[in-house]
């Protein structure tokens, strides 16, 4: 069952990445969009590694393995795209947006809450260190996703058109945390649901982004 779930995740990420390449790399597109596509590509590579390890070995190494870098890399791409490209456009650091900056902290708080719960279940071991690093990257990315969902669009109308994408990315971040948590709590039905939702999110990223870009450019 686990093999099939990972295979489905890999295929979903590959389809999402392939569609992203097809839509956004034929013509000149914003670096913001390209970075998100790279992020999906990174997730695909990580999942591919895990799937291949499952098929060839029968199990995935419980501590550090290269597949972890897929999740870390993809969220770093998402974070870099928001922090490096969008943050300064929508938030000038003034007091007007302070409220939104504070509310946005709720997302990393939820991520860290889930991690602490995981830590309490497993205790200190190699996996908790690896998952801690994963959580840190997911948390910093989720902060910007939530902020860009709630922040009012004052000047350009760009961030408004990307709200659905940011919401989807936020949900995906929580799903990745749920995946970590479910390695400690054995709930097979929940695991299937989380993986199916992750597949849907990976497939939906580029079409949702495409819709946003259409609104932004027209």
């Amino acid at each position: 069952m686990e093999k099939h779930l990972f295979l489905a995740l890999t295929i979903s990420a590959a389809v999402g990445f392939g569609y992203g390449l097809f839509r956004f790399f034929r013509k000149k597109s914003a670096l913001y969009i390209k970075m998100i596509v790279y992020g999906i590509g990174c997730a695909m590579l990580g999942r591919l590694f895990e799937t291949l390890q499952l098929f060839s070995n029968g199990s995935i190494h419980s501590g550090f393995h290269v597949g972890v870098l897929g999740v870390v890399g993809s969220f770093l791409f998402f974070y870099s795209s928001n922090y490096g490209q969008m943050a300064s456009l929508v938030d000038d650091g003034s007091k007007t947006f302070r409220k939104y900056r504070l509310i946005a902290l709720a997302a990393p708080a939820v991520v860290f809450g889930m991690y602490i719960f995981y830590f309490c279940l497993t205790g200190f071991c190699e996996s908790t260190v690896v998952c801690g690093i994963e959580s840190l990257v997911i948390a910093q990315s989720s902060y910007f996703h939530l902020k860009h969902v709630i922040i009012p669009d004052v000047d350009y109308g760009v961030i408004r058109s990307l709200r659905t994408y940011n919401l989807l990315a936020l949900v995906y971040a929580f799903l990745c945390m749920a995946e970590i948590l479910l390695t400690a709590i054995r709930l097979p039905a929940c695991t299937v649901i989380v993986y199916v939702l992750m597949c849907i999110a990976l497939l939906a990223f580029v079409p949702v982004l495409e819709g946003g870009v259409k609104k932004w450019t027209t």
Partner: protein
Amino acid sequence: MDNLSYIVFICIIVSFALMLPLMEKKARGVVAFMIVGIFSCLFVSELNNVLLRSFHNDMYYVTTTITPVTEEIVKAIPVLYYAIVISDDRRTLIGYSYAVGVGFALLENILILVENIYDVSIFWALVRGFGSGLVHGVCTVAVGYGISYIKKRRKLFWCGTFALLSTAIIYHATYNLLVQSDLQYAGILLPIITYIPLILLLKKSDASGDKRETPQKAENDPA
């Protein structure tokens, strides 16, 4: 023969180093980066031996998890240094990154060859040449190509670099995993499948670059 790596290294490096003063600037840069790649391989081979011992000689775990990390980081250092300190010109970075990868693969292949001299064949040479040669080249090019984008934007630099390295590491580890599994042929095909679109992408970006340059040249041309 304890110092076999060093013997091979000296044999190759001296010939390459002596060639440097005779070459014109751009070609000299490529050969210099090949030398850097060869040196990186020597350093990594020592490091990997230490790591292999510390992981109780678990060859499978080390080659699929640890060596991709060390190799990609060490290969990326000269490329990053060049991009940060000297130039972030995309075309130059791609050429130099590939040279680092090829230099690395060259010494690695020779070291494996001399260690397994009685087990090698033409097929082995083709597999190593197309597989390992391309994997090292493609991974370093991915870092070099990406760094030319993110270097220009300070906010993207650290996270972007780490994300690029992650991508290269996973790609390399996937290749190592595949060639040690039943899907060996898929492992050999993986770098070839990646290399062809990469070449097409570069040719396309070269062509669009030429198109953009042509009207500018016409404007600047006093005739």
